[in-house]
């Protein structure tokens, strides 16, 4: 378990990619990273066209970074939230290879954490008050609902996305503590999702540290493992530094999606 605290958008995405790049399927332990975002930033899905989603000039004027993720899904405004990332092999999660089933398995710790907080969460596919259409591609992450997104009172809480590469599973996800979409609205080029919630809106206003503790305990219980605190290794730190400068601070990747 690596807790890096809040970093800027390019540093966060660079470290996530470095952790995936350095993961050795034969030797590495499955990895959980917990982090935040400072300053607040937009992240785009791997294949999104930024001009269709955000006002890039407005973001630049306001000093809001826009970074592209290596994962799928839609745009997220990261402000008052806690973010996690996981790197593992399918063998480390009961040989689950399928994308949907791996989301169910890995997101289970979020369900458990939300239950511990007194909420009644459910996967969208299991929820009676789910939206009628699941799996639709939407510009904003929180506007679309996949089968294994988590709903609380019919509203989507957070969002999760994956990257599949070299047979590895990389997943990261966002857990909004406070409503932040109104802050993002002036910079968005698409309507705000009505069905998205934060923990505070669901009736659980929490400090980041309290949520972190709940997530870690729930992660251990859900997967039947013990987390060991760690820090990024030298190689991971070096690669993250290179990726930050050559990729995640560059328009060619962030805006055009062109890998260096």
């Amino acid at each position, binding site marked *: 378990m690596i807790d890096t605290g809040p970093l800027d958008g390019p540093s966060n995405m660079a470290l996530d990619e470095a952790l995936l790049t350095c993961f050795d399927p034969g030797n590495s332990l499955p990895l959980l990273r917990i982090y935040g975002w400072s300053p607040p930033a937009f992240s785009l*899905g*791997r*294949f999104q066209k930024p001009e269709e989603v955000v006002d890039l000039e407005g973001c630049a004027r306001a000093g809001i970074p826009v970074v592209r993720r*290596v*994962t*799928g*899904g839609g745009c997220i405004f990261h402000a008052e939230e806690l973010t996690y990332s996981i790197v593992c092999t399918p063998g480390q999660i009961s040989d689950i*290879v*399928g*994308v*949907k089933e791996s*989301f169910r398995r890995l997101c289970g710790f979020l369900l458990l954490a939300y239950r511990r907080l007194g909420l009644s969460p459910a996967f969208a596919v299991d929820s009676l008050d789910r939206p009628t259409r699941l*799996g639709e*591609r939407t510009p904003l*992450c929180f506007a679309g609902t*996949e*089968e294994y997104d988590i709903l609380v009172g019919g509203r989507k809480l957070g*969002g*999760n*996305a*994956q*990257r*599949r*590469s*070299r*047979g590895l599973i990389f997943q990261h996800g966002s857990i909004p503590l406070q409503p932040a979409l109104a802050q993002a609205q002036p910079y968005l080029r698409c309507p705000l999702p009505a069905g998205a919630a934060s923990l505070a809106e669901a009736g659980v206003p929490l400090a980041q540290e309290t949520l972190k503790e709940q997530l870690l305990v729930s992660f251990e219980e859900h997967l039947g493992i013990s987390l060991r605190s760690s820090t990024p290794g030298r190689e991971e730190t070096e690669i993250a530094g290179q990726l930050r400068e050559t990729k995640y601070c560059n328009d060619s990747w962030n805006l055009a999606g062109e890998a260096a």
Partner: protein
Amino acid sequence: MDYYFTKEHEWLRLDGQSGLVGITAYAVEQLGDITFVELPRPGREAKQSEVLCAVESVKAASDIYAPVSGRVLAVNEQVESGPEIVNQSPEEEGWLVRIELADPGELRSLMNREQYRDYLEGLS
């Protein structure tokens, strides 16, 4: 037509000096509904086992690897506008790329259909 398969679940259908490349029915089943396909530019030189293109399904971005080295001759524009074709017909209409083989010797590292079937059985 001769089909060749990779351990990463790509197929190559050889047709003279070039062949069509796509992903197998097993891969499609694991990926779920494909919502986006990113294809390489024609003319790009690909290397065996390196990333050739990518697909998005269920908020997962997945790399697709080149089964052989060679030059990309053409891409299937139909799947760019209609990615669901890959789900509906992964080994026919849902092909992704036509590639000109740089080294036919690389075919020896691929599986035939029977070997791929055995490989899949070993995975389950």
